[in-house]
């Protein structure tokens, strides 16, 4: 199992957020990809779509299950990972790198700070969080 990067913030829905200059990169955690199993399809939002913190913004499907993606923050989508259309399994092999899902411009720059840090997320997982 890949370790959870220390520089990311996490949600109880098993998404991660990385502040990168003015934008926030969003993906799913290693725990999420492990629980999903083989990812075979990712339904992405469009550039320009609005994200609302805690609300679904896309769908991720494994061979067996359909799961919603929940926005960690509110903002506007500025980039989507189009490469996932041809190789959705990247979410499994590299959830914190090439398996990123969207980049968003946060409506309020302070939002990311309010998410869980890695210690809090791992404590949440240890309690059986899902």
């Amino acid at each position, binding site marked *: 199992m890949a370790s959870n990067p220390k520089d990311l913030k996490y949600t109880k829905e098993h998404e991660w957020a990385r502040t990168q200059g003015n934008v926030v990169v969003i993906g799913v955690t290693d725990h999420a990809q492990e629980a999903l199993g083989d990812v075979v399809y990712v339904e992405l939002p469009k550039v320009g779509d609005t994200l609302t913190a805690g609300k679904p913004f896309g769908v991720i499907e494994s061979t*067996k299950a359909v799961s919603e993606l929940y926005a960690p923050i509110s903002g506007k989508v500025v980039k989507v990972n189009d490469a996932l*259309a041809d190789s959705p399994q990247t979410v499994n092999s590299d959830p914190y790198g090439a398996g990123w899902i969207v980049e968003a411009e946060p409506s309020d720059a302070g939002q990311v700070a309010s998410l869980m840090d890695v210690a809090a997320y791992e404590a949440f997982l240890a309690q059986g969080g899902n």
Partner: protein
Amino acid sequence: MALRTPLNDAHRRLGARMVDFAGWDMPVQYAGGIAEHETVRTAAGLFDVSHMGEIEFRGPGALEAANGLITQDLARIADGQAAYAGLLTPEGTFVDDVVAYRFSPERILICVNASNREKDFAWMSQHAKGVKPVDRSDEYGQIAVQGPKAAGIVQRLTKTDLSKLATYRFQEGEVAGVPCIISRTGYTGEDGFELYCPAGQAEKLWNALLEAGQSEGLKPCGLGARDTLRTEMKYALYGNDIDEQRTPLEAGLGWIVKLDKADFIGKAALEKQKAEGVKRRLVGFELTGAGIPRHGYPILKDGKRVGEVTSGTMGPSVKKAIGIGYVPTELTAEGSTFDVEIRGKPVPARVVKTPFLKKS
């Protein structure tokens, strides 16, 4: 409390992820569903199917008693032959889909779905004429070895000459010193066997097969791979594709119905349906737009709901989003198009020849 097969500990030791399936604690995957699927298509996979039920008719009149319940004609198959059949309601719909094994006219064993075991046994007990069935499910463990390498692997563990055992034939013998019904059947589209053994010796057989197959790439496989493998073949799954609302004629399983045999439950209803014409049929389709069809998604034609998806997946071997569903008869020809409603949006689909998987 979930039911456990005799192989439950073995699955946990192998690191399986366990899920509830029809009340059973079963392995959904070990290494990963797609990897296991590919292992079965290219080498061999080992499946625990001990949750399946086994119901036996024994004694004079056994064949006739079983024959009155199922769509296939046990009088017209040989001893040592098995038949895939429907167990139907008087309306001609599926109580279950089963495999009937004819050992002799006085011994018939019927393998039923785990989810239907109690219902089937009650149904058969109520309707069988002459000979009453016995539920022997707890006595049997059942292991499926499936894939192009399966025959070589099993042959090394048995004196039974497997080259003489054709598809849907079976023999009693020993595998790895364990007494088994060796049946050349399966649910994957690959060559292979289903081995019925005493429950107490299932783990011995499982371990012997794992060891014997290791050098040829045999791996344990879970229900996830079993489902994608069967979907690529358009094999029906009870509760998804067939149920008490669907008949074999609608499900494209006319070949398992012998209307010229002696009476069986559901025969009159099927004769009537055949005479009047079947109004909806189960077809296989590919999604031509983006997405994956799933059980329960509506099928639309010109925006109107005309049917529904009963199974769907991303086919790991065919590498396409494939689905199975019921549509009106006029939409069943190869090349017919309709939409599948996915999360409120219509996504185009096209009817294709099945099985989806074309063997080279």
